[in-house]
């Protein structure tokens, strides 16, 4: 599997796909996309890298253990929910900061935090699965 072409492509694609996945996640509140889809794309980037260079190098690039990402994602999601409770609202009530920049309104809210959590969990869980299965094969 370790072909030079694949390795070159993977090295190039990795940052692009990660950027794209973050973009998908961020725009998800208004356009098709969202944390889940973004997360799958992000996981795909590392999976590709793992195919090209082996799971060990992919783990190296990822730095964190995917299970840590998974845990962090869950933590972020719960905290986004508790954010509202601190402010006296029900669990998971959206809290919003609205900026007016020129013509456009800019909404920044806990929903985004929530989606980031989803993103992290999806990346973490998918990579946990893929890495361990690939390590089993090699």
């Amino acid at each position: 599997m370790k072909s030079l072409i694949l390795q070159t492509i993977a090295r190039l694609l990795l940052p692009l796909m990660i950027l794209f996945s973050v973009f998908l996640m961020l725009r998800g509140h208004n356009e098709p996309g969202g944390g889940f889809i973004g997360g799958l794309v992000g996981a795909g980037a590392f999976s590709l890298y793992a195919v090209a260079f082996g799971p060990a190098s992919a783990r190296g690039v990822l730095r964190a253990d995917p299970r840590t990402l998974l845990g962090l994602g869950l933590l972020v999601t719960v905290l986004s929910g508790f954010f509202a409770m601190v402010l006296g609202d029900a669990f998971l009530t959206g809290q919003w900061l609205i900026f007016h920049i020129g013509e456009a309104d800019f909404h920044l809210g806990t929903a985004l935090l929530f989606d980031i959590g989803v993103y992290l969990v999806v990346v973490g869980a998918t990579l946990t699965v893929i890495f361990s299965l690939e390590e089993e094969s090699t």
Partner: protein
Amino acid sequence: MDWLLVLPLAIPLFFGVVSILARNNLLLQRWFGVLGMVVLLVVSIAILIGVRTQGILVDQMGNWIAPFGITLVADHLTAFMVLITAIMGLAVAIYSLANIDAERESFGYYPLLHILLMGVNGVFLTGDLFNMYVWFEVMLITSFVLLALGNRKEQMDGAIKYVTINLVSSLVFLSGVGILYGMTGTLNMADMAVRLDAVDSPGLVTTASMFFLVSFGIKAAVFPLFFWLPASYHTPPVAVSAIFAALLSKVGVYALIRVFTLLFVQETGYTHQIILWVAAVTMLTGVLGAVMQTEFRKLLSFHIISQIGYMIMGLGLYSPLGIVGSVFYVIHNIIAKTNLFLVSGVANRIAGSFHLKHLGGLYRKHPFLSIMFIIPAFGLAGFPPLSGFWAKLTLTIAGLDAREYVVVGIALFVGLLTLFSMTKIFAEAFWKPLPSDRPKPAAEVEGIPGVAGIRTMMVPIVLLAVMTVVLGLGAGLFINVSLDAAEELLDRTRYINAVLGDP
């Protein structure tokens, strides 16, 4: 704010996540295991107090008014179930300290235990049918992993059967949710209850109810859908068997009670009569399965099935006393059955086997353990004045009152067979002298905490035995409270008004 209702979900999730992140620190995981359960217990007590003092508690997630967001609801039944879940969680967490090997711990035993409870509590608390599906899945996937954790041969075999059948059940559930949504355009159960009454053809609602009868019936392990349970419950470590026995099938029973008192009451002469007869056959077939078993935990597993029959018998009777009987039976059974599983673990630790023919001599050498077995075992068989007697008595009175003589007859007869099989364990494992040709005791096998662990394992056993006795002697109080639960369940308007706001 009733943010209280979120905590039974958030606390286990929090402790679970911390345990995932701290996966290399086993000591911390162990103590967080116990600590998390204690916190959960405190919260559940607070919820019960809240329900007792303020009536049905409601919390609209994200502040979206019902039926548009997801609503968490706690009535008496929910409060009971959440409380008993926390108690079982604590009991098993303590037991796990001496029962779970370091290998399983390092592969996520404690996070799984926490999140299992999260899923279970989610099912109890949610007022939204699709959300209930999600929590069922949370519960299922954690139970899958717990069951398989360890990767031993029996576990793999059991897990294949358990996973497959339960996935079918989930998909039937999901389809049922879809169909109900297609009929009512809503997912909030209170809203749905109102709209189902307005459906022109009650027969169609009854048809939809069959999806739930089957799907929850599989989870509850009723006849003829129970196969996954005896196929798998004896394969994981005892702590896992015990928490499964405590909670999983009872979640199915809870769901049956919930939907067949809240949603599907249009044609009770059909639906509830089916439930009643399913109950009768379930208790009979389960106990017959039990009497022929020679393995401690398999015998107990078949008993779970049998007792599920009692639990839904009260639902089938669909009278206040019947529901009281069901609720009481669920609570009593969770306590007693879990305890018996825990005792089986101690017996195995001492004698090195779960097979009755290899066990023996426990009565002579461990009289205290014997008492701790007798209490839940005879409680389960419905011996007065232990808790099981009152549960059975309530059902008997309710059944005779409804003139369901045959079903009552079966219920009483099954009690006798239960006694028969419990005395079988007692005679074989406790009374009989220890046979000489038996495998080496587990305590001598490497990698497992030795006999020293028994003291820790006895802590939850004693706790639960005391509960069985207290629940028996103090049945008056508990039945009065259960009556409140039954009235709430039978008078749907209270639930509906609490969720949707007074009309």
